[in-house]
């Protein structure tokens, strides 16, 4: 066999060392809301909360920035979680009936979560007998008895086992079988029936020896563990769902499957209680659904709270996700948009206190976490500082802006505050405050922008570990849509009984798909931004600190340029509202440009110094002068044979999505009319998915194996005219002596158009450019022979560095580019990278990625990587994400491969499509969606990694010998170990895992900003519009379906 010898650049040890100092790949933190949560726990002493997921993940949250993550070895659903209060230990129950003990362990001063022990209930056990099928020993409930370091496990087989928590050993002799309980029951109640699974176990707050056991059949038993006898029995007959034991032990509340709850009095001596003190069906008299969980909390001010989930009238509101809060006469039915997983109240847990006095109610839903302040009248929602539902409306694009100037940051913050005023009272602050965030105050502000299907753009603080919502921009107000009925819907809901109250912001329904945001670009120096959407709308906005009322100038640009024979078969363009409209403080629209035909905008870029915005669709591209409000250029890129481009929505998936949306809307309307929803959203989705899968592979194809056609791309492929990237640059296009403004556009078929622009020059830097028309002249047209889609275009200066952003050079924020000539243009297609000289376009270097690796380029960004070893050293490199989910880094302009890491699973097309790179001087993060609701943050730089560094004041009894079986080295820290963080070194060397570690240590000041020339240069980072964000291309879908 022939051997090829690849002549690579020799493995130069010095270069290898440098690479290690420059590049490192870390996935650091997951932002957003955990996907598919399944369990919730709260530690009232440490004030930390844990969320378990269906994939076996455990996440612990405290104060903002305090976050611990763990993952069970098996991907089983976490069904229950219980904190050992104050100990930083968490017991989890998975749906395979295994128990796992997690510990928050301090190491090098910062804490992390690790699994200490696990326990599987053996199948063969005393009372259940050898013949018992395994299902009889399935654990249904867990009760921790922290005083005795014991846990009680209720099983399906009516037994209660006891477990030593410190060792997770079964306490053999203490098991309570159903026989022991049955013998204390009256014969007529027994009547040969089994008790059913243990549904609930409750501990007594003041008397740790007593346990309240509820069996599915309805029997409640107070068991004295010390005396091993039944203290009291309540002979309930309704199928039990949950129990709550009042603080003083005299009240027991039980909820039932018929939607009723009963209050029992426990003071009635030894004789069995036959009847509850009171029983109500709150949403009766018609049949109701089960009350899954009920809480009873008494208050110092008299009365008590009854909080329960479910119990809605089966016929009319059986599909609602509701939690009812009842206090005296006040009933509020909290109406959520997604399924309720669990809820808890934040209340006093000191045994000596007389009252619970709940402060807050936290409800974990499938898609978000809602916290209500129970101390403020009206029970308002408390804004969450983290766990924000990123996906409250589906994310359609995202962009990251690094190093946001403090002034702009403050303005966005204040706009956000005006938008959602913070509750005034101090009591209503976020109740989950455990732990201390040891991470330094981020030296740079990072802004993550997400565009959503409903036409909003959300601004997130991505500087630290907790992704915090800052501001929400809605573009829907500018347009007339058919969602006007939304208000009437809300009103209609209000007069109804039950007293529904809409809570939470998760709203997957978008009333007009045309509003969807496709592209976003923000200039951080001028606070101007452009938002482009599905119906060809390009909206220029400007940040204003004052509310105002003004009309928005509307222009339409015909991108077909009088081409004959095309009829747009897609959606109509949005009709803008005319006349002056009121705008709140924040980003206010100035100019609206509407592309014709109104196809989705596929690329957008902004040059604030020249006051130009460029936009492209599947038909062509245009340049608009938003200062003079006049179009500069429109060019059609449509191939004469391309019929698909005129079809409107780009893919079948989109149209399916549309039909889905319509069915959602139907559902929603049916809800208004009070009818029961036929199918749940998720089953609808599954149906649709199945349908899609069927469409994708017809039955005859199943017989033959999958095959792929090998054919070069041809000029008349469909959708070849889609504009993939746009770029403004001040460079040499026409001759080597004069540089000037240029605009570059790349299409799906490998065409690049370069225009020379005549922009009237500003008199002085920073001033607005004088009035005068901008002219565009076609300078060059490049057709890449391989015809792969052009993903990105960038101009490199004489030193091989990318040109700075607008205003960066003129405001001394970046090193001025070398304008002495020798410019080059980097054109990245899906298959290869090429550097061409300018002004005479000739190929200089290239790298054929696809020919060598068989992968295609999805996202590309130029970034400056700073060295960990040397403060001043940095290199500009090209980072690219491929369709296989790998990240490759190439040198620029040499285009030599440097490093590559596998980042995203190749099957995860939405992750790959959602990936956003940022041009960041030091940390160089990137983001991609790991689920519809979570962004994974990764870093490519060896320097500065944003990851949770936090500690917790834990006080578990040290006397217990535990070190013997605890692994000393943590696997979880491996990430951080690879790249020792500067923060760790400077701050936490003294942070021993001392429980008495004072709370005031985190006062060390953030270090002075480094003023080396390199860091200034690196401070220029911004989200270059180099990459295309968040769009699933046709290829992606083909990949997926194929």
């Amino acid at each position: 066999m022939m051997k090829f010898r690849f002549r690579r650049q020799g493995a130069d040890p010095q270069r290898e060392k440098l690479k290690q100092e420059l590049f490192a790949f870390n996935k650091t933190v997951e932002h957003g809301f955990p996907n598919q949560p399944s369990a919730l726990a709260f530690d009232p002493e440490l004030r930390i909360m844990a969320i378990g997921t269906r994939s076996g993940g455990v996440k612990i949250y405290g104060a903002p920035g305090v976050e611990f993550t763990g993952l069970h070895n098996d991907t089983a659903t976490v069904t229950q979680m219980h904190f050992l209060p104050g100990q930083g230990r968490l017991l989890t129950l998975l749906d395979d009936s295994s128990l796992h003990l997690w510990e928050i362990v301090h190491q090098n001063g910062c804490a992390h979560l690790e699994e200490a022990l696990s326990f599987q209930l053996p199948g063969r056990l005393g009372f259940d007998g050898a013949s018992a099928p395994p299902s009889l020993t399935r654990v249904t409930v867990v009760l921790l008895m922290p005083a005795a370091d014991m846990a009680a496990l209720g099983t399906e087989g009516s037994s209660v086992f006891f477990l030593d928590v410190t060792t997770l050993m079964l306490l053999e002799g203490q098991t309570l079988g159903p026989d022991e309980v049955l013998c204390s029951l009256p014969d007529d109640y027994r009547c040969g029936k089994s008790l059913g699974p243990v549904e609930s176990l409750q501990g007594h707050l003041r008397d740790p020896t007593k346990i309240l056991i509820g069996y599915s059949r309805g029997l409640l038993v107070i068991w004295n563990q010390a005396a091993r006898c039944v203290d009291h029995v309540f002979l309930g007959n309704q199928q039990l769902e949950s129990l709550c034991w009042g603080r003083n032990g005299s009240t027991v509340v039980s909820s039932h499957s018929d939607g009723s709850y009963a209050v029992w009095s426990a003071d009635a001596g030894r004789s069995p209680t036959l009847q509850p003190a009171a029983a109500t069906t709150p949403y009766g008299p018609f049949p109701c659904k089960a009350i899954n969980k009920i809480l009873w909390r008494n208050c110092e001010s008299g009365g008590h709270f009854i909080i329960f989930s479910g119990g809605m009238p089966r016929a009319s509101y059986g599909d609602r996700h509701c939690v009812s809060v009842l206090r005296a006469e006040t009933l509020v039915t909290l109406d959520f948009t997604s399924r309720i997983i669990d809820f808890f109240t934040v209340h006093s847990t000191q045994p000596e206190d007389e009252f619970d006095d709940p402060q807050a109610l936290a409800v974990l839903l499938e898609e978000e976490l809602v916290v209500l302040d129970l101390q403020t009248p009206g029970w308002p929602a408390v804004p969450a500082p983290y766990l924000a539902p990123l996906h409250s409306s589906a994310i359609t694009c995202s962009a990251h802006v690094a190093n946001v100037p403090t002034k702009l940051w403050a303005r966005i913050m204040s706009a956000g505050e005006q938008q959602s005023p913070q509750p005034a009272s101090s009591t209503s602050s976020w109740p989950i405050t455990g732990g201390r965030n040891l991470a330094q105050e981020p030296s740079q502000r990072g802004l993550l922008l997400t565009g959503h299907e409903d036409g909003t753009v959300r601004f997130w603080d991505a500087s630290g570990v907790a992704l915090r919502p800052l501001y929400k921009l809605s573009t829907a107000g500018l347009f007339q849509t058919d969602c006007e009925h939304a208000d009437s819907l809300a009103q209609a809901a209000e007069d109804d009984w039950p007293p529904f109250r809409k809570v939470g912001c998760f709203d997957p329904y978008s009333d007009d798909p045309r509003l969807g945001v496709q592209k976003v670009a923000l200039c951080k120096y001028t606070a101007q931004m452009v938002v482009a959407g599905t119906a060809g709308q390009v909206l220029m906005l400007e940040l204003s600190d004052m509310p105002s009322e003004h009309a928005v100038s509307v222009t339409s640009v015909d991108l077909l340029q009088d081409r004959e024979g095309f009829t747009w078969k897609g959606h109509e363009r949005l009709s803008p509202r005319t006349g002056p409209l009121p705008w709140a403080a924040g980003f206010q629209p100035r100019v609206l440009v509407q592309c014709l035909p109104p196809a989705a905008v596929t690329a957008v870029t902004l040059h604030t110094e020249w006051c130009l915005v460029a936009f492209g669709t599947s038909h062509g591209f245009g340049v608009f002068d938003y200062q003079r409000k006049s179009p500069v250029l429109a060019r059609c890129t449509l191939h004469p044979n391309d019929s698909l481009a005129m079809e409107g929505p780009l893919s079948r998936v989109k149209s399916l999505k549309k039909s889905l949306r319509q069915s959602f809307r139907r559902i929603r309307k049916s809800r208004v009319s009070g009818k029961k929803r036929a199918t749940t959203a998720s089953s609808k989705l599954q149906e649709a998915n199945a349908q899609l899968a069927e469409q994708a592979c017809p039955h005859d194809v199943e017989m033959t194996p999958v095959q792929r056609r090998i054919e070069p791309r041809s000029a008349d492929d469909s959708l070849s005219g889609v504009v993939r990237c746009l770029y403004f640059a001040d460079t040499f296009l026409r001759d080597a002596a004069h540089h000037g403004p240029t605009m570059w556009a790349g299409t799906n078929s490998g065409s690049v158009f370069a225009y020379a622009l005549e922009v009237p020059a500003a008199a002085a830097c920073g001033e607005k450019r004088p009035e005068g028309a901008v002219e565009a002249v076609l300078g060059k047209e490049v057709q890449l022979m391989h015809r792969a889609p052009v993903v990105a275009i960038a101009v490199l200066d004489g030193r091989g560095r990318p040109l700075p952003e607008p205003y960066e050079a003129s405001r001394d924020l970046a090193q001025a580019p070398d304008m002495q000539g020798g410019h080059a243009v980097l054109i990245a297609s899906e298959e290869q990278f090429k550097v061409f000289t300018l002004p005479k376009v000739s190929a200089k270097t290239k790298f054929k990625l696809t020919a060598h690796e068989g992968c295609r380029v999805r996202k590309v960004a130029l970034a400056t990587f700073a060295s960990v070893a040397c403060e001043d050293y940095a290199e500009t490199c090209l980072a690219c994400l491929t369709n296989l989910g790998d990240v490759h880094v190439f040198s620029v302009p040499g285009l030599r491969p440097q490093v590559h890491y596998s980042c995203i699973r190749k099957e995860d097309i939405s992750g790959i499509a959602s990936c956003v790179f940022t041009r960041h001087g030091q940390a160089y993060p990137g983001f991609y969606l790991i689920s519809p609701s979570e962004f994974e943050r990764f870093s490519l730089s060896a320097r500065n990694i944003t990851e949770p560094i936090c500690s917790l004041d834990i006080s578990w009894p040290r006397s217990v010998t535990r070190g013997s079986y605890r692994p000393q080295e943590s696997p979880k820290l491996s990430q951080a170990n690879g790249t020792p963080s500067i923060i760790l070194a400077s701050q936490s060397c003294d942070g021993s895992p001392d429980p008495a570690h004072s709370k005031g240590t985190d006062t060390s000041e953030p270090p002075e900003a480094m003023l080396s020339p390199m860091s200034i240069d690196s401070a220029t980072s911004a989200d270059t519009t180099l990459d295309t964000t968040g769009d699933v291309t046709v290829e992606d879908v083909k990949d997926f379906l194929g």
Partner: protein
Amino acid sequence: MNRSHRHGAGSGCLGTMEVKSKFGAEFRRFSLERSKPGKFEEFYGLLQHVHKIPNVDVLVGYADIHGDLLPINNDDNYHKAVSTANPLLRIFIQKKEEADYSAFGTDTLIKKKNVLTNVLRPDNHRKKPHIVISMPQDFRPVSSIIDVDILPETHRRVRLYKYGMEKPLGFYIRDGSSVRVTPHGLEKVPGIFISRLVPGGLAQSTGLLAVNDEVLEVNGIEVSGKSLDQVTDMMIANSRNLIITVRPANQRNNVVRNSRTSGSSGQSTDNSLLGYPQQMEPSFEPEDEDSEEDDIIIEDSGVPQQIPKAVPNTESLESLTQIELNFESGQNGFIPSNEVSLAPVASGTNTEFETHAPDQKLLEEDGTIITL
């Protein structure tokens, strides 16, 4: 390494070289400066002069070391003829109007029972009817089998030339499994196979690829461990100059290396080029000829042109020196692997080619140069 010719080889006769020229029945003998052969046109004039046929259009051919009759019609193959002649350069001249084009090519002289070739190739006496079509240079090859000398006989490396023509490449690939012999016995491994040939497509018309052929390499890169999609992308990315190495499902039509290799310098030939012998090294580079790959640039004048190669500027010199060095070893007789465009064409293009050649090296920058 497989070098068919060496500059300055056979330097026994340094100064001059004997030329024996045959036109019809007449022979002429004269000598040439080996070191300064001059241009083809001068040589052509000289031949016309020595044979006294000043105004007759003739085709000039010579016998190469294998005894094949090869044409001389430009500076390039003229120099080649001179440099490889050892010790004698045999020239055959035909009148253009009477020319038997099929005379050119491999084994042509053998069939004429040329004494010289009979010595070299005593085994080949088969007769085949010649189909007179046209000069080979009037054709563009659509496919070729290459690197026969270095591949196992069970493998076949096929090059498909797509050019700009309308004909589709016309084949499909699929996943499958093949059996490999390993130290642990036979093992089933996943592989990529040709699943379908489009009727009338390039792949089918060549006859070199067939359904169920296993694809082993694409342009020099092994496909084992790569997914169907990856291989598809690689093939499409290389579709303008696709070189695929297959293990044919039908192993009966394999190229059997003929015995003349033992008799001669061991040169491999490109068997498919309409019987036209390969003149240069059987070099195989994934960096295909960039003249084909060139992107088109339209300057504001509106005239499309191919993008020329850049002359290195100072900043990239550092990286380029590395490449220059890499090439030093292969420099010996460096002619780009362009077996096709080197086929006799108008002599004017040759000079252009010469100027192209040094520039092409610059494009080999990405460090994946493959040499044999």
